[in-house]
């Protein structure tokens, strides 16, 4: 059984329909990447799964439970964490407080402050500073650490490489296998197709609110991806 099973999901912003019958699955221990151009509906998709947008109840099933349209805070409590686009650290909280707020629901699991400090030692040195006073890469580490503090079974990552130097992106991605090893599956949105293909077990391509391609990186040729990404 899949950890996350999305079936025929539609999403709307007012009258504007952003997703059309999207289907996607994430298995236990899997890393799934979603690629697609700007405006393809990738972020909308993550926001729907996280409970920030209305959805048909049975369109999103997590660990056997329908969660479509459930309040975001209950979805977090069930084990779905989000690393939001733009990192969104809380500016009036210190780095340590940002991490502690990630554990607000008190879900038991392997992730503690100490574990996060070990995953990203640079954060430990800066635990007392304001979350937004750090470099972009450090903020992204804190945002990932904050999501891990909720001890999720599934972590949603929205463009964690956005606006960061390649060396920092490599450092961030190098940390992800350790996260999976602790029993957390990953659903990542990534504009950098090369990065997505390197890390993912499976890849989905979105275009104009629809899934245009799905498969394992080894099965996907450059031509098929280009066609799915830009439209043929």
């Amino acid at each position, binding site marked *: 059984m899949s950890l996350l099973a999305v079936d025929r999901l539609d999403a709307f912003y007012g009258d504007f329909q952003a997703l059309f019958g999207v289907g996607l699955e994430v298995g236990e221990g899997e890393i799934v990447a979603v690629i697609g151009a700007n405006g393809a509906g990738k972020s909308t998709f993550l926001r729907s799964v*996280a*409970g*920030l947008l209305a959805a048909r109840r049975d369109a999103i099933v997590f660990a056997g439970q329908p969660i479509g349209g459930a*309040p*975001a*805070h209950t979805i*977090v*409590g069930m084990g779905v*964490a*989000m690393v*939001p686009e733009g990192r*969104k650290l*809380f*500016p*009036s*909280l*210190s780095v340590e*407080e940002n991490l*502690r*707020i*990630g554990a*607000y*629901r008190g879900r038991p699991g392997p992730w503690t402050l100490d574990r996060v400090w070990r995953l990203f030692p640079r954060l430990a040195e800066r635990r*007392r*500073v*304001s979350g*937004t*006073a750090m470099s972009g890469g450090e903020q992204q580490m804190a945002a990932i650490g*904050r999501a891990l503090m*909720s001890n999720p079974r599934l972590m949603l990552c929205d463009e964690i490489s956005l606006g960061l130097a390649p060396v920092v992106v490599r450092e961030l991605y190098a940390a992800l296998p350790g996260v999976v090893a602790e029993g957390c599956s990953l659903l990542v949105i990534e504009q950098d197709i090369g990065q997505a293909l390197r890390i993912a077990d499976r890849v989905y391509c979105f275009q104009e609110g629809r899934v245009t391609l799905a498969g394992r990186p080894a099965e996907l040729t450059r031509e098929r991806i280009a066609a799915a990404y830009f439209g043929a």
Partner: protein
Amino acid sequence: MDWVSVILEGALLGGLYALFAAGLSLAFGIMRLVNLAHGDFIVVSAYIALFLAQTVGLHPLVAYPLAVAIMGLVGFLLQRGLLNRVMGDDIMPPLLVTFGISIMLQNLLLQIFSADTRGLVGGGLQTASLALGHGIAIGWLPLLTMGVAVAVIGALQLLMVRTRLGLAFRATSDDQTTARLMGIDTRLIYAVAMAVALVVVAIAGILFAIRTTFDPASGPSRLIFAFEAVIIGGMGSLWGTLVGGIILGITQAIGFALSPGIGLLFGHLAFLAVLVFRPQGLFPRTRGA
């Protein structure tokens, strides 16, 4: 004229203004809610205390804390049942709703308690004073009020910095959507914030009603004092509201000493001066821990 007494008296009056301001500042700081009924809630607290002490006949030391607890419950239910429904990206709907609540409360109080001015019993506290020598004496009630203000603001500060609830308040204040992604039920947090705000309002309202007489129309001018103290001190800074309240109290007291007609005007002028020269207030909210 004894200026030392005037300034001392004004500074202690500032304790009351700081209490007026703290509840307003809390609601604005956490929810971006500008509560135009704030002054009327101060007066409603006084009437509830009056009702419990006089009509029901409870001892003031039972009646007043009970009134504070009732106001906390009112705050929670008000936010859950009404204000949460109108809160969103637009600050206008809650502004209009609290404006409506203000008018309704004033008329409701008028209907139930008539337009007569009332006062709360303070067990002689109103007139007792402490002689400091050199002909200077300060009242026990203003001193007590200042003590309560410092204690309340200190407690709120501890709540915000040291507790899990405070962490949730600050995160929700920073970014409501991301707070939800942390598993925080922001609607519940809002209701708790309003409960805390109205608890502070009720403490302020009871001290105010022991100090001076009040009637159903006393609310709006208390709202103005609260606003002025918040702006002078700096939005979102709890200790700033104490300083803002003290500055407002001292300028009013100086004005009153010069001529009884211009006391309030002096306070308003101090407020305008801050708005013109330092619109962010004296202690703007500091970012980071």
